[in-house]
């Protein structure tokens, strides 16, 4: 029927229609994601206002700002490498595209490692709700400065693990997507005319980045 390039799916009339559909599709999906994180963030913000003093103490005393800042920097760099990857894909520069995609995957894994370190430290301090939560932490040097109500701090940490865990899950999915995209780029599937998957997964990655830009101040910096 269609005498078009093999990258054109049968349901589309031409490449422009296919591109419009895939990019609009990702934006619609991101709208869904926005509501997904939005629901959880709303719940967090409500409790933040209910128990503002206790949440402030939990954040001030137990969030690791250096590691969180490092992760923010790593993630912003990965957004840059993705954007450059899309740029190179648009100009058909396959080698540079693959390089940028690999850099993105590397930065994403670095982020996840830092996050895992943070989780481990919180586990060591017995701050993981449902696993070993005790407050004030038994090994704390100056427990007398910790005056917040333990259930409220536990609530903070419930949301902390829920939100960052959900974000980390999106990162892991992103690594999987980029691994697949890198493989396809290596096989030479993308051209200057057809690089929709690169652009669309780039949109997804920027969104995941943006979620962290909201999580970082809400959880780490809001004292």
């Amino acid at each position, binding site marked *: *029927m269609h005498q078009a390039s093999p990258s054109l*799916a*049968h*349901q*589309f*009339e031409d490449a422009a*229609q296919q591109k*419009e*559909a895939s990019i*609009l*599709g990702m934006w*619609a*999906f991101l*709208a*869904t*994601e926005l*509501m*997904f*994180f*939005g*629901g*959880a963030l*709303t*719940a967090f913000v*409500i*409790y933040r206002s*209910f*128990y503002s003093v206790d949440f402030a103490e939990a954040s001030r005393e137990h969030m690791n700002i250096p590691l969180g800042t490092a992760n923010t920097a790593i993630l912003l760099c990965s957004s840059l490498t993705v954007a450059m990857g899309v740029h190179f894909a648009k100009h058909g520069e396959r080698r540079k595209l693959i390089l940028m995609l690999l850099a993105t995957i590397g930065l994403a894994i670095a982020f996840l490692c830092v996050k895992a370190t943070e989780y481990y430290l919180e586990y060591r301090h017995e701050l993981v*709700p*449902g*696993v070993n939560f005790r407050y004030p932490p038994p090994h704390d040097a100056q427990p007398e400065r910790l005056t917040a*109500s333990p*259930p*409220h701090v*536990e*609530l903070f940490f*419930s*949301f902390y693990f*829920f939100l960052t865990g959900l974000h980390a899950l999106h990162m892991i999915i992103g690594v999987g997507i980029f691994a697949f995209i890198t493989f396809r780029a290596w096989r030479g599937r993308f051209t200057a005319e057809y690089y929709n998957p690169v652009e669309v997964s780039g949109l997804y990655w920027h969104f995941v980045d943006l979620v962290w830009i909201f999580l970082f101040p809400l959880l780490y910096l809001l004292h």
Partner: protein
Amino acid sequence: MSTVSYQPALEPRESYINIAYTVKSWLFTLDHKRIAILYLIAITVFFFIGGVFATLIRLELMTPEGDLVSDDTYNKLFTLHGVVMIFFFLIPSIPATMGNFVLPLMLGARDLAFPRLNLLSWYIFMIGGTLSLTAAITGGVDTGWTFYTPYSSVFSNSRVVLTVLGVFVTGFSSILTGLNFVITIHTMRAPGLTWSRLPLFVWAMYATSVIMLLGTPVVAIAVALVGAERIFHLGIFNPALGGDPVLFQHLFWFYSHPAVYIMILPAMGVISEVVTCFSRKNIFGYAFIAASSLAIAFIGFLVWGHHMFVSTQSIYGGMIFSFLSYMVAIPSAIKVFNWTATLYKGSISFHAPMLYAGGFIGLFTMGGLTGLFLAALGVDVHVHHTYFIVAHFHYIMVGGAVMAYMAAIHYWWPKITGRLYTEWLARISAVIIFLGFNLTFFPQFLLGYLGMPRRYHVYPPEFQVLNVMSTAGASILAVGYVIPLIYLTWSLWHGKAAGPNPWKATGLEWQTPSPPPTNNFEEIPVVTGPPYQYHLEEVPFAPSKSEPGAPV
């Protein structure tokens, strides 16, 4: 699956059905029409499972004593009835079956924008359904379909986690279907098919899909938090640990009220198609009907608080939500008045789809008007948690959504299968359903107004007469639902060939042979005018020449 073969009189022609007969060709199909059939089979099964739970509830309520089932079992019955009917029948009903089948045809497209995603959404739906049914079989769940905390998260000792996991998973199928429809409507319209020429069913599906996209993730996060709370013993919604149970209700109803519009908006779209076709008249107030679908979707997001008038919500919050709930009546009434005006001086014929459509208009109006009673703060406090509300939402859900679903099946059945069903049987069962429905649910308005609370398996003896009437109605209703199952199945082998356009309807879906070929159209049609040109002497869309023997 080799259900339809052509009668010898007809020239054999390749259609989406006879192109391949293997099980594999169905389970790995990317064709929106085949995926629609997969959905149709799945949700029919869910409908009858939900119906069995309903039957047991009605049997228990025949007598004031709790003699058929225990109180625990009764709790599980009404919970599972709600979960199955809402999440696994009503929400996917019209969109996933009729929408999937007809939408690309109406747009003059070869398929949805993302066929793989479409198949994926069916598998996700089946996984979600299996999870929830497993929960039902291995012990059931007794929280009510609303999963209110802290009962669901702390106290209930039934299979809550598995059930909400099923609901969570199914939500993604709904999101993906909605996404697919929105993108398809935006990007896949045939040449000349401008927004103002779209069939009203497409407008309704568009509004529905937007709700699916923006509402479903919120209930997903709400039930995910319930699951996390239950598994890790967190305090997110547990007041003993500083959590707020009403917050769950906010998150839950933020989706679940708009979900009502996920069920009713596609139904309204179907009615717009059917009423204009069987009145042989252009639809009255096209732009208003289209815009009112979007208005319902928009206002629908702002009314969730009317479920919480008695749940510690502030009186000012209650007043605002009450006012906004009244606002929904405006676009709903616009639709009803426009359908009525379309009927006025039309050449009305009472084929089965039209009988269902007529039933819809009447029953939806009653359901909508009693909705206004409930939106009024003072009255709501009186009838809250009584059978009045049960009757109200069954008038919308069963009298509205299911009636329209039946109208849709009968209207598009010839297109889907290429066969005509037995018309007189279809008309009789439409009448039986209408009568059975009213006998089942009208007494429940009275029961509720007299003060019978919902969710109890015993009740004072003075309510028995009305309850017996309701149970009698339910058995009539059950007969009404079984008859179509029989004659529709029968028609697959023995029905007369339908031809491309048995109703002489406008709309691109009638311009291609029945059943349509895999690619939908031999040539992508070009649209030159608005829809519903029934007032012109001849339908502007001539049936395709490729199929001989089109019946008169």
